[in-house]
C-alpha cells in the first residue's frame, strides 16, 4: 500500500533576525486531516513559523512543502490560492463592515468577483448564501447585520476564523484561537473548532497556550523552544517528556 503523503513538510527551516535565531533548523511533517498544535514559551518562534508558512517572512534557508509544492518565495496571495488559510491571534477583521460582509468579501474573493463594479453586493447570491452558511456553522448568523466592531471579543475571533474558512482552505493555521477567552468560552470554541475540522475537511495547525485546549484537541503536539523543535509526538508522550516539563510545562501539568 502506498504511504499517504504529508500535506505540509518543513525541511531544515531557519530564520534569524540579526544574531537572533527565531527559527532554528525546524523540520516536521503534518499528515492530511491531522489536528496538530505548536506550543512553547513566549518568544519561542511560533508565530514566526506561521509567518514563514504564509509568506509574510521569507526563511533564510530550508523548504516549506505544501502538497509537494515549495511555498518559499511565493506571495501570500499565491499561498492563499493554493489552499492555506490563517486566523490571527488578534482578530483581523474589517471592523466597519457588517458581520455578513466580513465573510461575504472573502466568499467574493474566492469566486473572483471583487472587481464587479455595478451590482450591489446583496445581488451576489452564491457568495451571500455561502457566507450565511459559514455564519451559521459559527453560530454568528443572528449577528449578520451587526457591525463587526460591535461583536464581543470571542465572537470576533470566531469571525476571523470564518473569514479564513470562506476561502476554502485545505490547511488552516489558527494562532491562539482561545486567547483572551473565559474558561467557558474556551470550552465552546474547542468544540466548535473540532466541528469545523470535521465539517470543512480541514488539516489544522494551531498555536495555543491553554493546556486544556492543547491536550483536549490536538492529535499531535510540537514543542518549540528558542526557535528549535524540542519535541514532537502524541499528547500523552509530550505530557510525560522530561525535557518539555523542564522547559515549558512545569508544574502546570505535572
Amino acid at each position, binding site marked *: 500500500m502506498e504511504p499517504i503523503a504529508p500535506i505540509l513538510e518543513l525541511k531544515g527551516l531557519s530564520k534569524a533576525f540579526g544574531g537572533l535565531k527565531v527559527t532554528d533548523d525546524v523540520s516536521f511533517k503534518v499528515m492530511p486531516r491531522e489536528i496538530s498544535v505548536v506550543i512553547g514559551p513566549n518568544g519561542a518562534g511560533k508565530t514566526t513559523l506561521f509567518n514563514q508558512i504564509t509568506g509574510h517572512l521569507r526563511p533564510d534557508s530550508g523548504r516549506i512543502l505544501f502538497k509537494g509544492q515549495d511555498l518559499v518565495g511565493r506571495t501570500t496571495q499565491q499561498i492563499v490560492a493554493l489552499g492555506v488559510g490563517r486566523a490571527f491571534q488578534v482578530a483581523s477583521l474589517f*471592523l*466597519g*463592515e457588517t458581520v455578513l460582509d466580513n465573510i461575504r*468579501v472573502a466568499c*467574493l*474573493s474566492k469566486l473572483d468577483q471583487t472587481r464587479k463594479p455595478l451590482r450591489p*453586493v446583496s445581488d451576489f447570491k452564491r*457568495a451571500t448564501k455561502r457566507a450565511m452558511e459559514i455564519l451559521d456553522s459559527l453560530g454568528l448568523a443572528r449577528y449578520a447585520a451587526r457591525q463587526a466592531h460591535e461583536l464581543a471579543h470571542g465572537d470576533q475571533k470566531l469571525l476571523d476564523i470564518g473569514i479564513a474558512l470562506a476561502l476554502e482552505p485545505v490547511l488552516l493555521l489558527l494562532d491562539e484561537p482561545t486567547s483572551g477567552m473565559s474558561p467557558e468560552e474556551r470550552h465552546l470554541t474547542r468544540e466548535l473548532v473540532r466541528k469545523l475540522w470535521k465539517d470543512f475537511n480541514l488539516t489544522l495547525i494551531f498555536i495555543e497556550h491553554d493546556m486544556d485546549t492543547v491536550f483536549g484537541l490536538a492529535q499531535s503536539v510540537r514543542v518549540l523552544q528558542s526557535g528549535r523543535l524540542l519535541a514532537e509526538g502524541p499528547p500523552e508522550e509530550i505530557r510525560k517528556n522530561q525535557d518539555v516539563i523542564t522547559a515549558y510545562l512545569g508544574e502546570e501539568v505535572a
Partner: protein
Amino acid sequence: MPSKPKTANTWYLLIFLVLFSLVPVLKTTNYQMLLAAHVLVWGLFAVSFNMLFGVTGMLSFGQALYYGMGAYGAGLCVKYLGQAWFFPGMALGIVLAAVTAWLLGHLIIRVSGVFFTMLTLAFGQLGWQVMFKWYSFTGGDDGVQNIIPPGLFSNKVIYYYLVLALVGASIWFLGRLSASPMGLILRCVRQNPERVRFLGRRVRRNQQRIYIISSLFTALAGGLMSGVDYSIHTDMFYWTTSGHVILMSILGGIGQFFGPLVGAAVIVTIEDVVGAFTEYWSLIIGTVMLVMVLGLPRGLMGEISQLWTRLPGRQQALTTREEGN
C-alpha cells in the same frame, strides 16, 4: 464607510436630481444657475476624490492635476482647433488623465500613508508648474477665455442640463460602485490591507484601479467646468484646488457617499454669499471647518445618518431586514 441600505442612497440621488433640475425653472437670475452648476461640478470632483480618500483610505493631495487636465483638454482644443472641438477636447483630457493616472499610479502607489500624499502633491505641483511656465502654449496665468461650448450647448440652460445629466450619471455610477463587491473590497483595503492580502486579493492593484477611476471622473468635472465658466486658468492645477475638495469631503462627511456633495454645496455657497460681503470669506470657511472637525467629526451627512440610526426602533428594523434576505 458602512454600506447604507441602497434605498436611502437612491432617494438621495433622486432628491438631488429633482432639486437641481428645478434651478433653471425657478431661478431669478442667471447667476443662481451658474452657482448651481458650480455646486454640481465641485460635487462630482469631491465625490470622485472621496472614492479615494473616504472609501479606500488614500489621501491624494494632487487631484487638481486631473481636474486641470480635463479643463485644459477642452480649453486648449477650443483655443487652437475651434469651438467644435470642445467635446472631443474634453474626451481627450479625460483619456489623458486616465493614462496619466495609470502611469503615475505605478510610481506612487508603491508607498502609502503620508508618503503617498506627499508624492501626489509633488506631481500635482509639477503639473501646475508646467502649465504656468509654458506660456506660449497654455497662456500661463492668463489662462484661456471664451471657451464656449458648440451648437445647442452654447445656450446656458441647455449646457446646465448637460452638466446635470453627466454629473448625475457619474454620481449614480460611483454610487453603484460603492455598493458593489468592488466598493466593498476597497473599503476593506482601507480598514485592513493585511487581511485583504489574506483574501488572496492584491491591495495595490485595487488601489490603482480606483485611482484611475477617480481621476477619470475628476477630469470630467474639470472639462465640464471649462464650459460653465467659459474660461480656464492655471489655478485649476494648483494645490489649493486639491485642498478644496478635501475640505468639502470632510465638511460633508467622508464616511457617507453623498457627504462630499453636500460639503461642496455648503462651501460653494459660503464662498459666494459671504464673498459678496467681505473678502475675508476664507475666515468663515476656516471657522466652519474648525467647528466641524472638533464638534461634528463625522461631517454633516455622517451626523445626520448617525441621528437616523439612533432613532428608537430603527436598529431593530435594520437587523431584521438584513437577516431576511
